[in-house]
């Protein structure tokens, strides 16, 4: 199966949009990276416009994969992971709490 070539459009995702999205997902980007991603994103998303060919007017979107309904288990107390075990991976801590830089306001 050869991938179909969709008609070329004037669709673009420019570097400013890339930088905006990068900040929303908390990725620090350099200017040259934003330019490169801009070209790639344009090509990728434009290719995916192929889906516009498909009539989905009366189609219900898929929302699960395995046909399962809500799964319940008995509400029984079970041992959890000891605090010291998961705290071992916390990069900045005082032994009991996770430490992060300032969240609100100024110091």
């Amino acid at each position, binding site marked *: 199966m050869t991938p179909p070539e969709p008609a070329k459009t004037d669709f673009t995702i420019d570097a400013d949009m890339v930088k905006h999205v990068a900040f929303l997902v*908390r990725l620090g980007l350099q200017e040259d990276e934003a330019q490169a991603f801009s070209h790639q994103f344009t*090509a990728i998303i434009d290719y995916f416009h192929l889906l516009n060919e498909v009539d989905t007017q009366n189609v219900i979107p898929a929302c699960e994969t395995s046909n399962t309904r809500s799964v319940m288990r008995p509400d029984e107390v079970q041992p959890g992971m000891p605090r010291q075990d998961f705290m071992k991976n916390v990069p900045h801590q005082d032994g009991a709490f996770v430490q992060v830089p300032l969240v609100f306001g100024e110091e």
Partner: protein
Amino acid sequence: MELHELSIREAHDLLAKKQLSSVELTTASLEHIHKTEPHIRAFVTVSDDLALTQARQADERIREGTNLTPLTGIPFAVKDCISTKAVRTTCSSRILENYVPPYNATVIDRLADAGAVLLGKHNMDEFGMGSSCENSAFFNTHNPWDLERVPGGSSGGSAAAVAASMGAFALGEDTGGSIRMPAGFCNVTGLKTTYGRVSRYGLIALVSSFDSIGPMARDAYDCAAVLQAIAGQDLHDATSLPGPVPDYLQNLGRPVKGLRIGVPKEYFQSGMEPGVESSIQTAIHKFEELGMQIREVSLPHTQYGLPVYYLVLFAEASANLARFDGTRFGLSVAEGAENVIDLYLQTRRAGFGPEVKRRIMLGAYVLSAGYYDAYYLKAQKVRTLLRQDFEAAFEQCDALVAPTCPTTAFKLGEKTDDPLTMYLSDIYVVATNPAGVPSLCLPCGFSNAMPVGMQLIGKHLSEDVLLQIGHAYQSVTDWHKMRPEVLK
């Protein structure tokens, strides 16, 4: 044949007869790994001490003669996205380079219960994002059949390791071909299980509605033995399926005569390497000789599988990878951070590679207000149609046959400059995951001296049928027994 080359079945026979100990087998495997690894680079971590401890425990179990399973004493390794308590689990990413999970994935606990011996963790494309293993943040893995070529991805380390006899089997993980595509490139038998057949608890998520853990091994028999140990409901994973697990090994011997094999015409239209197409056609004739009925079927939305797969992947991966923020585990770049946003920005810039950044951003883009309906929701609607295609096809046949990739393994560096071209190499394997159906990759020939893989696709929970057909095929062919020359 040397000890490290033994299949699960062969090694089990010797272990059960006490002609071989697990310590001997494990030691031979570790020695072979250390000798071969500089050429192949399949492992992020080799856990020698843990392996020998587990091997001694297995030998004890064998001596007592109780609770023996087909996997007791058998050495294996897993893709590095599967959590292993006390063994670092990196997803081949800088952001998890020093992360040591405080718990085991359910599949690791189940294999430990069966007595299998963990040798280490396999290299992969970072967070499973890639088709060649070249997106590992650490190093490239080389295809044992030609060291200048990729092993495929994203379970590239696992496929290369099994092909090079570095362990009797592996657990891979398949989000959109990540078991089957590298299995095909490396001449390995690999099974993408039905979504929910195997618990995902402890698997570091890429796409929570696609991800499926499955075995990669020497043949269908060995895959059945591994699946037997890992399949079944797990209360830690609410999407794991209830109901009994079939006896996969017992079912392998059932006759295949009369089974109906569908050939989806959309997969055979054009664009396939001639040697790949002729290998698949030869395999189809073999199915006919085995008494199976061959019929053409249609999966009319096949060409839309790739955009559906990638759009849903971008969206779910973007959400899943939000947890890597430098606060609770993994890399944390806090120097000079004036506030928590700086911490996030610095950590994620330093910790993620370009492909991961690309997909996180594309995910946020397709989920954002104004684009959600056009991309994400549209993809989920076409996903329904893809699924209906499979349902209609399985009314006419018991399994479908198709290639796993239009070409054999490509050269390292050949596709790294253009992400879209790399995505297109997944064109035959991605449609199964949005539908959740199982698929078994079987070695079926060679083209220009590189292995060719075919996949059998079945309806939900029909792993027993796929393995049965695979076993029958491998009983009359030798492709799966071919080993790469480079190591001899």
